[in-house]
């Protein structure tokens, strides 16, 4: 389902910073420390930006095996990029963009291997929900489990563009709009309006099912 452009300039030029365990303003300093050989800084980068990379991979609907390989490839390549990085504070955008390119390559490879245009075949959606569902059966999560499951299901059923955008936006800690832009190759200025629209859609779905 396509989402039209909503006329809005609200998010143009507005640096969008949101809180998280690793503040985006710290990324530059962490990268510089990692360049100097600080393994703890590297670990903090992985913990702070790994969920973003994972979100980008998940947004592109790869099989679990492909998703794992892309995630690793992106980080392995970042070890090489580290010493040449010109704008350390934009490491998240570099990672997001690299992840996107690798995901697109996977799609391309799958298309060639299958020699088919059947979109069903290309859409190798992982059954990632299965093992995690066990997690929901644990006692502390049981009460919230049903609601979380319904929310996730409603999210999965959104149109592809909304699902992609939200999957990247809900990385934890939340990505900056620059990073979202790099992850999905969409203009920073269109993220705010799309985000709003997609969240409204999700809420409408939940309300239609009486889940809000």
């Amino acid at each position, binding site marked *: 389902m396509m989402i039209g452009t909503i006329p809005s300039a609200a998010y143009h030029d507005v640096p969008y910073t949101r809180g998280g365990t690793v503040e985006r303003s710290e990324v530059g300093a962490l990268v510089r420390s990692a360049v100097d050989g600080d393994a703890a800084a*590297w670990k903090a980068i992985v913990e702070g930006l790994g969920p973003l990379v994972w979100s980008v991979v998940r947004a592109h609907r790869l099989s679990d095996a492909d998703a794992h390989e892309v*995630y*690793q490839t992106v980080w392995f390549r970042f*070890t*090489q990029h580290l010493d040449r990085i010109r704008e350390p504070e934009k490491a998240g955008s570099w990672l997001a963009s690299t992840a996107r390119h690798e995901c697109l390559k996977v799609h391309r490879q799958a298309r*060639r291997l299958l020699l088919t245009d059947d979109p069903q075949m290309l859409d190798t959606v992982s059954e990632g929900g299965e093992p*995690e569902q066990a997690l929901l059966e644990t006692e502390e999560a049981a009460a919230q489990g049903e609601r979380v499951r319904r929310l996730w299901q409603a999210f999965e059923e959104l149109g592809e563009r909304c699902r992609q955008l939200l999957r990247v936006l*809900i990385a934890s800690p939340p990505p900056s709009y620059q990073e979202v832009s790099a992850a999905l190759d969409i203009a920073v200025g269109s993220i705010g309006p799309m985000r709003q629209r997609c969240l409204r859609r999700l809420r409408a779905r939940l309300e239609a099912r009486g889940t809000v």
Partner: protein
Amino acid sequence: MSDDISDGTGLGDGPGVEEELLEEELRQAASLLDPVPPALLQSAVDAFALRDLEARVAGLTFDSLVDAIPVRGAAAAPRMLTFTAGEVTLDVELTEDGLIGQVLPPAPARIEVLTGPRPSTTATADDMGRFTAPVTPSGPFALRLHTTDETVMTEWLRA
């Protein structure tokens, strides 16, 4: 609570409070239902050991997966890759039987096939710069080339 679902007003102001809350709830759901697998997190942390400050990085300059026009019926053609670092070029073919490559300009060299922070497979390039390795990488891989003068490492790729 729900009177502003579809009235289309208030656009341009970013998400309202309710949307923000919904997004946060979805974020928590993602952390619960689809987190970064712990083994992957660890693998990325361990990747710091892959840094090779001595090696020059050879960037990918050709990838048949991206740069070649697909030929119908030629699906089994091996993937061809070219990496370049300055004057050094490394051509690689990923075949079912293993990896075939050539270093240009031709020079004897030792080549490591890396697949992660684990021990690697090694191949030797002859006087013509040609080499073969009996491994078919799947997943992330890189080649590290040791010549008499220097070390060159290819950009990491997913095979």
